[in-house]
């Protein structure tokens, strides 16, 4: 085991303790551990060297395996891991793009975030095959990305997704001038999740323990974000199958939740709430009681609309068996979060890497029997909305025990500890959001790495639309609702 160390969520380790393995052993080592990748990225290591960090997630034991490989200046290749573990494909493509070190025998080494205009798309030939190109600007009010379909008549053989249009250089900016406001703007639909992950890494490096009250407020806000977005997505799925009743009712119900967020922190999406050291806003009793009433109404309205909708046979005919990703495929390509759960792969970092509240408040994992189609992703959202509402209610009740605690802990201005490494995983509504920070000897951030669940999941969407009608693409896309900005950074 000397080749790997085990680390925990939100707990820093000394950089000096991270083992270095030889690149020739890398493939065997990773295969032997046999866990899924959660981090795989390079860092300039001086004198033209690059150090590659590999983090594997041991979800059943709430631990991560961490090791590294050093590439010297003239060392520009290694044997690709994707050949054995397909889930590495996107990580290796990113590493190649950023450092020019080639994973040999990678099945498809195409760009991740740059050179969209130079990339030759995969082409199929044949009398019946035609191409449909969509984007980067899409028909609706959504983020940009390019989709290239290979079709036979109406049905899709293959979809290639080219992203990177949103690239803003966030990882560089996080090194130069990190702030809560920047963390919130990485992905504006997961404000609380991103800001919590950033704050947790900084707190670990500054040695701050935040108050119980602040922890609970963060946790409640994270679940409210999940409730709001899931309801909005159910509305959008309804809209994409032209079931306008669902679109309008879910739309109005979502408004109730985000307006409650506005009452708590002054922003409908929770901006300004989470900060390094705690939270900026306490929840006064009157707001808390109103929020509880609103959530009860929301639960009732969502129940009512979902049941009405799912009784409708024309709705079911559009949702069932559309855009299916099988359990085997989902596990193989390394889907995470909601998309994985809908395909029957139980990954949920709230339970896999639990904080103390999960047991204290008695939250239990209730597995979802998903078959990976749009219907599963719709019903999973419904299930998670109900669960999250009960979690928020329990947290609000518990908050009363910590009335007198501070919302921001002292020590916010502490210096970061030197030569450290920390990983923070937060389950946003899409799935695991991973932030990794490293510091140098001068107590400054020297590397900041972010992984959005969409980074793993975009390829899943590509597989989901195979052999489906091209007109079902918007529906499949909405059922995943992946992030462009979180992927492009």
């Amino acid at each position: 085991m000397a080749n790997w160390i085990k680390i925990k969520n939100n707990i820093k380790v000394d950089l000096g303790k991270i083992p270095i393995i030889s690149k020739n052993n890398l493939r065997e080592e990773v295969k032997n551990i046999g866990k899924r990748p959660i981090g795989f990225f390079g860092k300039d290591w001086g004198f033209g060297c690059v150090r590659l960090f590999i983090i594997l997630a041991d979800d059943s034991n709430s631990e991560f395996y961490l090791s590294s490989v050093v590439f010297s200046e003239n060392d520009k290749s290694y044997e690709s891991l994707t050949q054995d573990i397909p889930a590495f494909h996107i990580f290796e493509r990113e590493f190649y793009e950023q450092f020019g070190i080639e994973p040999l025998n990678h099945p498809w080494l195409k760009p991740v975030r740059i050179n969209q205009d130079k990339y030759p798309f995969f082409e199929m030939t044949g009398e019946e095959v035609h191409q449909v190109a969509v984007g980067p600007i899409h028909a609706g009010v959504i983020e940009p990305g390019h989709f290239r379909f290979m079709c036979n008549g109406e049905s899709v053989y293959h979809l290639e997704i080219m992203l990177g249009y949103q690239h803003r250089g966030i990882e560089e900016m996080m090194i130069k001038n990190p702030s809560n406001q920047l963390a919130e703007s990485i992905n504006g639909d997961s404000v609380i999740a991103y800001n919590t992950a950033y704050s947790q890494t900084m707190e670990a490096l500054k040695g701050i323990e935040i108050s119980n009250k602040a922890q609970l407020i963060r946790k409640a806000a994270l679940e409210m974000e999940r409730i709001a977005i899931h309801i909005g997505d159910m509305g959008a799925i309804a809209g994409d199958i032209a079931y306008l009743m669902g679109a309008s009712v879910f739309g109005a119900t979502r408004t109730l939740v985000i307006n409650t967020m506005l009452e708590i922190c002054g922003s409908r999406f929770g901006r300004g709430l989470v900060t390094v050291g705690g939270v900026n806003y306490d929840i006064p009793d009157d707001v808390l009681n109103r929020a509880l009433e609103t959530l009860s109404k929301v639960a009732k309205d969502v129940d009512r609309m979902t049941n009405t909708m799912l009784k409708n046979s024309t709705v079911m005919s559009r949702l069932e068996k559309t855009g299916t990703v099988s359990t085997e495929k989902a596990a193989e390509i390394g889907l995470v979060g909601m998309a994985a759960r809908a395909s029957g792969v139980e990954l949920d970092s709230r339970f896999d890497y639990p904080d103390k509240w999960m047991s204290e408040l008695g939250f239990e994992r209730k597995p979802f029997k998903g078959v990976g189609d749009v219907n599963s992703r719709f019903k999973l959202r419904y299930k998670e909305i109900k669960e999250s509402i009960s979690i928020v209610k329990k947290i609000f009740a518990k908050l009363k025990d910590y009335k007198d605690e501070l919302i921001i802990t002292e020590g916010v201005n502490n210096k970061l500890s030197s030569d450290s490494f920390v990983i923070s995983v937060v389950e946003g509504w899409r799935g695991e959001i991973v932030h990794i920070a490293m510091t140098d000897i001068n107590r400054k951030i020297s590397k900041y790495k972010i992984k959005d669940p969409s980074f793993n999941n975009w390829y899943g969407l590509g597989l989901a639309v195979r052999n489906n009608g091209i007109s079902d693409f918007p529906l499949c896309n909405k059922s995943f609702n992946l992030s462009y900005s979180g992927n492009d950074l």
Partner: protein
Amino acid sequence: MFDTLKSRIYQGKQYIKDIENAPMREQFRGFPQLCANADTTCLEGVCPTGALNLNPLSIDMGKCTFCGACGRCSEAVKFTAGYKLASTCHEKLVVTPETTYEEYVKSAIETKGEIVKMFGHSLKLRQVSAAGCNGCEMELNACSNVNFDMGRFGIDFVASPRHADGIVITGPISENMAYALEDCYKSVPDPKIVILCGACAISGGVFQESTKLNREFLEKYPIDLYIPGCPVHPLTFINGVLGFIKGKNN
């Protein structure tokens, strides 16, 4: 069928009747009211985007993310619930202690007769997300939901730039989106308008220092309306656009 009808009746009417005078929750961080006499020493280095200037005291709403950091640590800045923030003039977005919300709303939007004549009853917009974080995009989508129902004023988002009277830009405009944005603009038939939506589009917002942006578009083409916010609230957007095409100061 009956269930659907029952749901419809249960929902009732959801739309905000008087959108120009819609009440806003007091917690909302909108128009910043500045106070010249308050102590500003603690405000040094607080602002993440450089919107706050201390000497003399002012806030550039085009840069402000309305994060509230300055308001939490000093009496000098108080974020009010005022949500009518749009302006046709970039310079007017700078708020000083002398600016009151009422005066700002009266003078912020100056429109031309031909705009009112051309677009007063119908304005179709093509939205371009140029590296927007999906915050402004979600709020622009919300403008068309049953609560805000922007379509009743003749304002809609359309799929093709060929059908549009103008474009709405969100995001700080990444290098990778610069070409597509300009292409889209050129595809919109004349006469056309350009609306910048959100702190990122107006000034780069929190991404001002990024090396991956290309904001040349904004120097090349005229901008007609600036709508501050991070993200822009639907009421800010709808009232801003309405003020612009109706030619009345709200």
